[in-house]
């Protein structure tokens, strides 16, 4: 059920939110159950384990630091000259738990990213904003997709600007302030102009912040089943 990208994004988002909260509060037994749940999900969602490891590698050093900070008692100022560094058992357990939580969260995050399309996420965000009168859901959703749209433009224009400056021997300059300013100004000018033209184009295609479009979202029975299942699981975890 969860396996296909066809699960309703809203339900997926709700499940993710619930699970994240539970993960942050769970103790060791809870984490064991959560890990089992992750393994089950992994069976349904086939993604290359390499991807997970790649993320963990970035996280790895961080995890180590967190662990060490908890586990080690550095006593520079303690009176007895013997041990400067001692292992705090309670701290080590705490550190391990924190690392475990972060790993599960990372796993859930990857699962979420792999099974959701940007436009699906946008639609779901818009839907969740609907009940809140102060929150202009359409604007939030539109701005999110505009942001995603600008990312490759910025990278491309930054690359061009760097190349153009290299042609004029910028590498002779060592002053980082000079280089930052000389790099940012042309880049920002150009991206701002791009933004300007995009605003014109959106306007002539009748964009207005007020009118809201119908959202193409359909929930199936399986979606509800999953949501109820996950909610039950979470309630159980919190109570136990």
């Amino acid at each position, binding site marked *: 059920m969860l396996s296909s990208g066809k699960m309703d994004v809203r339900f997926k988002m709700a499940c993710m939110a619930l699970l994240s909260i539970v993960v942050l509060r769970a103790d060791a037994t809870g984490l064991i159950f959560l890990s089992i749940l992750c393994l089950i999900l992994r069976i349904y969602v086939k993604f290359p384990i390499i991807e997970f490891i790649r993320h963990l590698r970035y996280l790895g050093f961080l995890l180590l630091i967190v662990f060490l900070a908890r586990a080690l008692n550095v006593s520079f100022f303690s009176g007895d000259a013997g041990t400067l560094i001692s292992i705090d058992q309670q701290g080590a357990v705490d550190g391990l738990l924190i690392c475990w939580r972060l790993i599960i969260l990372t796993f859930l995050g990857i699962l979420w990213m792999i099974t959701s399309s940007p436009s699906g996420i946008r639609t779901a965000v818009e839907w969740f904003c609907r009940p809140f009168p102060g929150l202009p859901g359409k604007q939030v959703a539109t701005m999110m997709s505009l942001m995603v*749209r600008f990312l490759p433009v910025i990278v491309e224009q930054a690359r061009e600007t760097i190349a153009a400056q290299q042609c004029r021997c910028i590498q002779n300059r060592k002053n980082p302030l000079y280089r930052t300013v000389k790099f940012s100004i042309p880049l920002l000018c150009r991206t701002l102009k791009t933004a300007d033209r995009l605003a014109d184009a959106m*306007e*002539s*295609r009748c964009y207005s912040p007020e*009118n809201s*479009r119908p959202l193409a979202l359909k929930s199936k029975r399986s979606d509800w089943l999953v949501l109820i299942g996950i909610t039950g699981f979470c309630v159980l975890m919190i109570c136990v």
Partner: protein
Amino acid sequence: MIPSSKPIIEVSHLSHRFSDGSQGIYDISLKIEKGEFVVVAGHNGSGKTTLFRHLNGLLTPNTGDVKVDGVSVSADVLRARQLVGLVFQDADSQIVGETVYDDVAFGPENLCLTPAEVNRRVTSALSAVGLEQLADQRPHRLSGGEKRRLAIAGILAMEPQVLVLDEPFANLDYSGMIQVLSQIVQLHQAGKTIILSTHDLDKTMGHASRLILMKNGSIIKDGLFEKVIHDVGCVGVKMPCTCQLETIYGENGE
């Protein structure tokens, strides 16, 4: 083409001065009938873009008035924007969506149509420009000519009566240019009114019915393409070579 009684676009005594004091266009009057194919030419800064932006209300006149299908643009901007689709000079900066399909759907969705109607329009716009195959592509992966056709499709999905294209051939290589031109000619044959600006009249030679020459914000010549083309020299536009050929043939022949 039999001109209908009511011109689809009617510009009367239109002037626009920008906030920084520079005069964009000055006292322009113009009538365009349904189904015409009008080319606007003129030097850099002659006011072509400024004129086009008044046709769908992106700019508002200082003096004068623009009527689209009989109704003033300022009275009903949304109607004007639906009737007059404007394709900008820079195709890249017009792309809004994350996929080709999403991008074309942006306009119809803003019109609050039903999903089924949005889908119908997107599909027909994409097939009109021959991009059905690429519906799920990321727009920035497209080639120059494809991007331009995508921009046209985005406008077509709003089902406008009039298609206004600002320098649609800029930055395209020869084959890209041919693709876009043949698209435009097809749309004209399907009954759309076409208005486009270009620096290179060669390309529209033989398709356009009418030529307007602009200089320093004013219209200085307006008439049948084949007539006006002989005056392009005085606005700093290049005489198309097909036309030079004609002149030579004429000389040789007589």
